[in-house]
């Protein structure tokens, strides 16, 4: 026994635990070496591409009921990650949950920007691609409005779009969306330059030097927010679950998603950091997209604002600030006791989130028979 050391193990027991850990690590490496890409397929819910423009694709998920709720729900995801986190696997799929509950779900896949996309601006993304996808739906379905669900940065896009085009949006749902970036306790906000004083980064200079902002740089920043939990402990926890094939493949799917970070189109990224983070322009009503000012007070449609109570990327206060910024008289805020990623992968949230969204929409829409 090591004298007085507050570890209730003798030297021999410590050594044994370390040996056992090493043994499991060796076995773990062997198990991981057997994993093939097809074993960790993701985004398995059937879908069809219905519209394509440049690097952007609009998908429709195959409805599971004869008369899905109308208007359909269009999901916009963040540019910084791939959207398959909301359809990771059958038992952890927001999309699948929404389809089961009778919704008609569409998704915008922003694609992987290449170097020649460095000039794309937020105007191109919001008034261009997003608007074209909405118009495509309105035109092809012969409807006047859609429901819009924006996640994270996609939530900010959906807020901008809804404020600029309130007549096209029947109901707006935002999920873990950063609205006020100058709230306290936002480490990512600080690093992104939202420190209220001298900005800590110069986004325009970074774009000038790098063109697009590499996804790896963004990812590294995210991991540095919790370096030990995300860089060390997470992998040691894997040792405990490698025997469980379902668990380890789920882990690897998440890993794949986390590190599958598209590069950020330079101009759009610089605008986003400058105007939304450094200047906190959204909540201040100072954002201009394509020459049009984004006035959140023009958001008059029903709004469901969903946030994560332990979110270290988008602090709850950042999302909750939406309530006081819009004019909607039908505003609902719902929170879950998880972190940012837990919103997609927590088993409990996956049970509760789809019905929360579906019930809220059903109270405001009606099903139609597609025959």
């Amino acid at each position, binding site marked *: 026994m090591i004298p007085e050391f507050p570890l209730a193990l003798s030297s021999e027991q410590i050594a044994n635990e370390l040996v056992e850990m090493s043994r499991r690590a060796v076995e773990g490496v062997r198990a991981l070496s057997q994993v093939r890409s097809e074993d960790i397929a993701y985004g398995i819910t059937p879908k069809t591409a219905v519209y394509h423009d440049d690097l952007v694709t609009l998908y429709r998920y195959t409805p599971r009921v004869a008369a899905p709720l109308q208007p359909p729900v269009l999901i916009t995801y963040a540019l910084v990650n791939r959207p398959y986190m909301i359809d990771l696997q059958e038992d952890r799929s927001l999309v699948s949950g929404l389809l089961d509950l009778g919704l008609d779900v569409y998704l915008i896949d922003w694609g992987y920007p290449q170097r020649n996309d460095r000039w794309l601006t937020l105007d191109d993304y919001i008034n261009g691609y997003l608007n074209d996808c909405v118009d495509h739906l309105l035109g092809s379905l012969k409807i006047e409005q859609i429901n819009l669900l924006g996640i994270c940065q996609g939530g900010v896009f959906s807020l901008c779009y809804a404020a600029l085009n309130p007549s096209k949006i029947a109901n707006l749902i935002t999920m873990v969306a950063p609205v006020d970036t100058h709230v306290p306790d936002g480490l990512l906000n600080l*690093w992104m330059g939202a420190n209220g004083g001298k900005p800590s980064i110069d986004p325009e200079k970074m774009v000038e030097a790098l063109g697009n902002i590499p996804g790896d740089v963004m990812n590294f920043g995210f991991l540095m927010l919790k370096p030990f939990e995300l860089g060390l402990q997470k992998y040691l926890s894997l040792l405990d679950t490698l025997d469980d094939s379902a668990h380890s493949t789920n882990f690897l799917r998440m890993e794949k998603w986390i590190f599958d970070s598209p590069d950020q189109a330079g101009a759009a990224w610089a605008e986003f950091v400058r105007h939304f983070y450094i200047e906190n322009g959204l909540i201040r009503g100072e954002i201009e997209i394509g020459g049009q000012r984004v006035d959140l007070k023009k958001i008059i449609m029903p709004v469901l604002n969903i946030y994560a109570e332990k979110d270290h990327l988008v602090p709850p206060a950042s999302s909750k600030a939406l309530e006081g910024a819009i004019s909607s008289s039908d505003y609902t805020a719902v929170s879950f006791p998880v972190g940012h990623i837990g919103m997609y992968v927590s088993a409990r949230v996956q049970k509760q989130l789809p019905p929360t969204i579906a019930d809220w929409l059903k109270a405001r829409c009606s099903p139609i028979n597609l025959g």
Partner: protein
Amino acid sequence: MDWQAQNTALLKIWGEAQTQMLDAWGRIAQQAQSPFNRNNSPFSSAMLDASTEAIRQGIRAMAFDADPTAREAAEKLFISQTSVVRLLEMSLRIWGSLLPVLQAGSDWRYALREQMNWVKTQTLQAATHGLHTSGTYQQLWSAFLEDSQTFGKPWLDDKDKTTQNGAAGGDMVWEAYQKTFGELVTLPTSLWTREIDDGMRLAFAAWVDMQQALYDYNVILSETWCAAFEQFMFDLIRLMESGEMLESVRDMLNRWSAVADNSFKQSFLTEGYIRAQSRLVQTVIAYRQRQRQVNERFMHMFDLPTRTEIDEAHRRIYELRKEVRELKRELAAIKAQLNGGQS
């Protein structure tokens, strides 16, 4: 992919800072004052080396068609496992050095501070090893050229030749030669222009700035690392005093992870850290721009298209496409209006 070339500098710098820190801790742990005989401790090197090697071999043996995510997870698993061992070893050895003080009922805070000061010094030395923040102009210039071999190769080769010639010719003759004629011929004449030379000097200045920023950043990181460890040791002593026990190595690691992440978060929120990180990013970006300027001057000399020119071409295509898109929209609106009018 294009970004791989672009972000190498930034990620390499950050990554190396972490790796150096981790390696340093392994070495520091072995040097720490210890009442234990290493061979009898839970960290008998033979046992650890064997397991480390087994994991390493496993990773090497991974099939080429293994999923890349699984391969990366295996590598991270290996790093994590090694880190645990180092952390434990470090904790136990520091604890060992505090033990006589604790047993004597003396002020362990002072002893802990003394130990941590030693750890800080060692960590800082390791974390900033290889950085060039001082030295003569010539020493820094050589280090800069070695650091940027790709575009500094002609100068580097030339410097080597210069040194050899100098040794053979004798100092006086060499100096006369060098001052009158040598400086001209020892430049890579086929490539030399005053613009490129100026560019190299600016890149050098940016590189020196970056080295200083990296040093400052590593100082803060290593201080934070040590503060986290001190807090961790503090927690362990508190546990001992309250009679509580950690039940396993994993428990201990969980406690370390929570303490360390919290310490790092507190540090990351400080103005000093944000300033250091900001300056590091700015200097890396500035250095990269200077590198590009030199590269592009070479490209111009060989009539090759530069990144800036290609970017400019992309910008024009982007603007034209945007105009076409707008015109299509307007045309569609006009057509719709006409069709509406006819019907």
